């Protein structure tokens, strides 16, 4: 559906370099990466707002590199919504339809449909600058959907909303995606959005594509140390394979031996990552099942993060774990407490495999 074929774009001091990826029809594709990585430029390139210096951009198999935005049939919603401040809500939504010279009754119909779909009929004559964030978001989505685009581009659309609103819009977006069978490409920082909505994702850093794959794939096997760090793995650890037999190997991490499934030969250095939520902390005297990795350590820091308690444990190297607050309180964890923690074999994800 959408393909970047070795695309390079230079804009001032910034360059996107040799980007290739594909988004299939009907996918909910996420582009993630740190600020300034070039995600927005990537979206704008799909919309036709930047012409590639090298490479081609394909839409539905056709090279559209030189086709201007007005002929691409791509909807775009920016983080700041970019509503037209000199037009009412209604006129904002009708803008695209007017540009496509549709007959007036049809424009009216479509606009009515969108107003009622997003529950904003009462806002029709309002000036856009008087709307709340959630209302602006609805208008921006309605305006983009009015032209019935093949692809919807969303540039961090939820980042300016409060948490309740955010949850609501995740459902709205899910509905839009399912009802219209629309291809959606969304830029985001938010792990929750990606895991709730995404089918596939690409990770961009410093203008380069670091990894592309299904959301599950990327989270299960980050391509590099910085990908692992960026997508939220708090434990990125170096070790050495000391034994490898029957698809299972033992990794030595500063004296701690961890067991995992892998076929990496003995003696090889590896980097792996473990989610903080995958490290389960027990009282020091607890009994644990035999096939899990069980490690003893000492708590070096305890901090509250909302409903969760974040614990750092020294076991030769430092592990980060999160646990529900209640469990931490029950165990009366404090700095200096000796603990036992367990890590499932499958929670140890070798990077770059």
């Amino acid at each position, binding site marked *: 559906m959408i393909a970047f074929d070795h695309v390079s774009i230079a804009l001032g001091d910034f360059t996107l370099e040799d980007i290739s990826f594909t988004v299939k029809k009907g996918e909910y594709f996420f582009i993630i990466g740190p600020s300034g990585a070039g995600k927005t430029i990537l979206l704008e390139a799909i*919309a036709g707002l930047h012409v590639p210096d090298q490479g081609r951009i394909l839409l539905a198999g056709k090279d559209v590199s030189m086709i201007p*935005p*007005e002929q691409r049939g791509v909807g775009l919603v920016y983080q700041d919504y970019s509503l*037209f*401040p000199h037009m009412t809500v209604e006129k904002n939504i009708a803008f*695209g339809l007017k*540009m496509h010279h549709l007959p007036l009754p049809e424009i009216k119909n479509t606009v009515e449909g969108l107003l009622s779909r997003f529950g904003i009929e009462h806002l029709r004559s309002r000036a856009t600058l008087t709307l709340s964030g959630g209302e602006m978001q609805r208008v921006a989505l309605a*305006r983009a959907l009015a*032209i019935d685009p093949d692809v919807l581009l969303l540039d961090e659309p939820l980042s300016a909303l409060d948490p309740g609103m955010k949850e609501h819009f995740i459902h709205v977006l899910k509905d839009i995606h399912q009802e219209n069978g629309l291809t959606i490409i969304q830029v985001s920082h938010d792990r929750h959005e990606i895991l709730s909505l995404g089918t596939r994702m690409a990770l961009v850093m410093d203008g380069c594509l670091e990894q592309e794959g299904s959301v599950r794939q990327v989270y299960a096997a980050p391509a590099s140390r910085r990908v692992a760090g960026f997508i939220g793995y708090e434990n990125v650890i170096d070790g050495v394979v000391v034994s490898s037999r029957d698809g299972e190997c033992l990794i030595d991490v500063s004296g701690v031996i961890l067991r995992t499934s892998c076929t990496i030969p003995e003696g090889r250095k590896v980097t792996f990552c473990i989610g903080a939520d995958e490290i389960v902390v027990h009282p020091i005297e607890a009994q644990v099942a035999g096939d899990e990795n069980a490690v003893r350590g000492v708590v070096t820091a305890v901090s509250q993060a909302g409903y969760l308690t974040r614990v750092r444990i020294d076991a030769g190297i430092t592990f980060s774990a999160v646990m529900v607050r209640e469990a931490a309180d029950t165990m009366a964890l404090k700095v200096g407490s000796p603990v036992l923690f367990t890590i499932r074999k499958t929670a140890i994800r070798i990077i770059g495999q």
Partner: protein
Amino acid sequence: MADSGGGSLWARYKRADSTLIAFSLIGSTLVILSFLALATITLTQLADLPFLIKVATDTRVINSILLTFGAGLTVVFILLLFGTPLAYVLARTHSRVNSLVEALIDIPLVLPHTVAGIMVYLLFMQRGLLGAPFKEIGIVFEDAFPGIVVAMLFVSIPFYVNTVREGFQKVPVHIENVARTLGATRFRAFILIVLPLSARQILNGSVLAWGRAISEFAAVIMIAYYPMIVSTLIYYRFTTGGLRESSAIAFLMILASFSIFLVLRIATRYLGRYDDRV
């Protein structure tokens, strides 16, 4: 906060911001200067009302004022037509050429107006690089209306282009981008989105340029002493008829300009204001 009311004079005094007070005192020097200048000429003129009326009904004076305002309007019209596209390009592109162009545009700002006048004269005189071909098609600049217009134009360009460029820059590129993805060509996005959103700045640029144009003297007399614009007429009357006559014309010019600016400001109070929250 100093004037937020309530309390005795002493309490107000104690709450007052000493920096603001000091700055107000220093700054008022300039305000007083302007006020005194205005008051002096007004009082002298009102003291001699019959003469003022006589000058005001002098067709040469009326014609001169109309000529000046007309030439100023022509300049604004040319700037709207040529300056607006230039301002847009400067606002939306980031090439190295831009700073060169901007420096060129700004030249009249940093030159004595007589120098500007000589530059315009050399270019538009009958043997000039542009004056010669224009003469072929029957347009002469020396001592003619077109000469007044080009001299005024040259010195007004930076006022218009810079103001409008800033206006265009304030229109977020994102808004324009969205309009384009919705099916507007770049030109339509310019007409339907950028232009209305910078209407106020375009007006400001036009007013500034017009004001600059009608106030030009040195550059104009170099190429077109005749027909006399108001500045020329005032200078001429000053050197021949003396202060009495020239200050009467000056006062009329003040009245005319003031009323035009006032009417413009009132008429366009709400133009291009979308960011005032209701």
